[in-house]
């Protein structure tokens, strides 16, 4: 799950992580009010969408840039009126862009140094790892590739948490001395506490800045939360913005289906995550392009299969469907009936290839054959993939 920049700042404020003063605004008047409440000086106005590249983006109304500097609350109001309710297109949004419903109004800061600080859970060692670098404001992968000696990695004991000596060690490696070392220790300690208490899988502060007047603060941050822990994080769940998500995925999540939208035209419906990934791969192997990842799970019901069909068919890009089921415990005939019911109910008019294997497979195949539906059966996964790719090409 992702959150907005202003929500990240709210989390920082809650946990005492120093950040740029400012607040969110929903209307131009609110933007003016927020700006009036801030210290006099330069202001920054930032469009709140999940996608990156906002500064270099363009609004569909022709207004350039999703990030602006200004001097007065009146100017903030004017800028807000040009951004709110408008659609911003960046290199990450795709050509359709994203509507801007909220903006962040903050005090602009004069940056002396840009640093990098992140916490994530390291799979190899199964403990949290801090990654820090003097090279902030740029892509950390590039730093890791070109100047790996400028990256510090430090493991944290999950029972002790980040120790004071570790925060000082990191601060020293970043050249944060004197009063900045104390600020750094406090910031790192509080950020670690936020990471653990809110079940993050990653927090990346980039850049972490030193201002010209000697303050250390988190200027921009990216959070990833552990989906498995959302059941105990109601305040994080409340930050979910479904308008930022693929509508197909939002609908699927309502039916407890594990769905991820892709750009291809052959949809797939599979039981099991590994098999679902492998089915996408085999569609490509056969010369097609997968439209989605969809795992209906080991205990899928007829209703879930029917919902899955509706979601797949609501996507106008989809020109064919491949169903791939290995019914280990699940009865293949139950699945076959679910497919038949869903296909009839949705008035299926595009090619459908079904590959069934496993428990009670003969009855399942018989149900499909006698359904009167125009569908093909695949002998194995590769055969099924070849058939659906051929059928979609023939229909085009």
């Amino acid at each position, binding site marked *: 799950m992702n959150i907005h920049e202003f929500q990240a700042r709210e989390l920082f404020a809650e946990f005492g992580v120093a950040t740029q003063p400012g607040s969110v605004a929903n209307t131009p008047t609110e933007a003016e009010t927020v700006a009036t409440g801030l210290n006099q000086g330069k202001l920054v106005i930032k469009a709140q969408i999940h996608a990156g590249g906002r500064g270099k983006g363009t609004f569909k109304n022709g207004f350039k840039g999703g990030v602006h500097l200004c001097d007065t609350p009146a100017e903030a109001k004017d800028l807000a009126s040009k951004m709110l309710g408008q659609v911003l297109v960046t290199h990450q949004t795709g050509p359709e862009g994203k509507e801007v419903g909220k903006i962040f109004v903050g005090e602009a800061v004069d940056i002396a140094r840009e640093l990098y600080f992140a916490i994530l859970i390291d799979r190899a060692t199964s403990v949290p790892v801090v990654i820090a670098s003097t090279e902030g404001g740029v892509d950390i992968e590039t730093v890791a590739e070109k100047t790996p000696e400028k990256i510090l990695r430090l493991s944290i004991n999950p029972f002790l948490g980040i120790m004071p000596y570790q925060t000082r060690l990191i601060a020293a490696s970043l050249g944060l001395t004197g009063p900045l070392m104390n600020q750094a220790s406090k910031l790192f300690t509080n950020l670690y506490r936020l990471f653990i208490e809110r079940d993050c899988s990653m927090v990346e502060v980039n850049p972490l800045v030193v201002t010209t007047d000697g303050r250390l603060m988190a200027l921009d941050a990216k959070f990833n939360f552990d989906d498995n822990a959302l059941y105990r994080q109601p305040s994080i769940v409340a930050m979910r913005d479904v308008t930022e998500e693929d509508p197909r995925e939002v609908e699927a999540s309502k039916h407890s289906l594990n769905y991820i939208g892709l750009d291809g035209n052959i949809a797939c419906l599979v039981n099991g995550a590994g098999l679902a990934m492998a089915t996408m791969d085999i569609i490509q192997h056969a010369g097609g392009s997968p439209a989605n990842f969809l795992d209906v799970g080991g205990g899928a019901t007829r209703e879930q299969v029917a919902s899955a069909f509706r979601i797949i068919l609501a996507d106008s890009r989809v020109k064919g469907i491949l169903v791939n089921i290995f019914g*280990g415990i699940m009865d293949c005939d139950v699945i076959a009936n679910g497919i038949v019911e869903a296909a009839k109910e949705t008035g299926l008019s595009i090619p459908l290839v079904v590959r069934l294997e496993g428990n009670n497979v003969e009855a399942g195949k018989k149900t499909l054959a006698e359904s009167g539906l125009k569908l093909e059966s695949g002998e194995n996964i590769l055969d099924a993939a070849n058939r659906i790719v051929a059928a979609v090409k023939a229909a085009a």
Partner: protein
Amino acid sequence: MSILVTPETKVLIQGITGSFGARHAKLSLEYGTKVVAGVTPGKGGQLFESQVPIFDTVDQAVRETGATVSAIFVPPPFAADAILEGVAAGLDLVVAITEGIPVIDMMKVKEAMKGSKTRLIGPNCPGLVTPGTGEKSHGGCRIGIAPGYIHKKGNVGVVSRSGTLTYEAVWQLTTRGYGQSTCVGIGGDPINGTSHLDILKMFNEDPETEAIIMIGEIGGTAEEEAAAWAAQHCTKPIAGFIAGATAPEGRRMGHAGAIVSGGQGTAAGKIAALRAAGIEIAETPSDMADALIRRMKR
């Protein structure tokens, strides 16, 4: 021999009275597995299916029945506690089937398990099967949720992060006449108890295992580590399959651990590492058993 469990292994089930646990406990009993105890706090003294005694604690169950292995079916909020209860009772092996355990909980479990004698498999895994000698492999040790009947007793070891891909591989082997020594699903979470490498080492030392299928997917570097070891030390033929070549970067593909991030953990990188180690690559999931047969004839 097999690895980890034999048909004689005494198994207890934590969460035996939940619908998920009960269903699979029953299937294991029907397969002929020695399910000797169940644990559900507050239901001690009752019987499961009129034959398996239920205990309030794992400790009691172990002392009364001699169980050495546990399968965990409890819901995610209670799973970390259940695993550590099994560890504290001195079990040899704890198999956590539960999907959806917070990663911070698993991090603490792994830290707390350091120095203990217990091995953890999973979480978020289908469990393991050592097939039996009866019809449709009846009489084997089935721990978890895999379909028992697809197996056949034999000499191929299977290790995988994915349940359904394991079943695919097993079924392909069985229908081609190749049986299995033990099939292990290590689970799809980013932090798990047992890695591909751990299982490869066991298969390499197991006299009954003559060949190995290793199934991986995007995310992490566990497959690469296993392949690097195998290139130097493994004396047995291996075939491999990696899922997720078409997965977009930064998206979690069903399994919590199946994610490509920062260009790391890609299918292409893993396939290259496996190939470099002399592992025969299955080009598609339909090709897993055939890839192993090709490798054995090479």
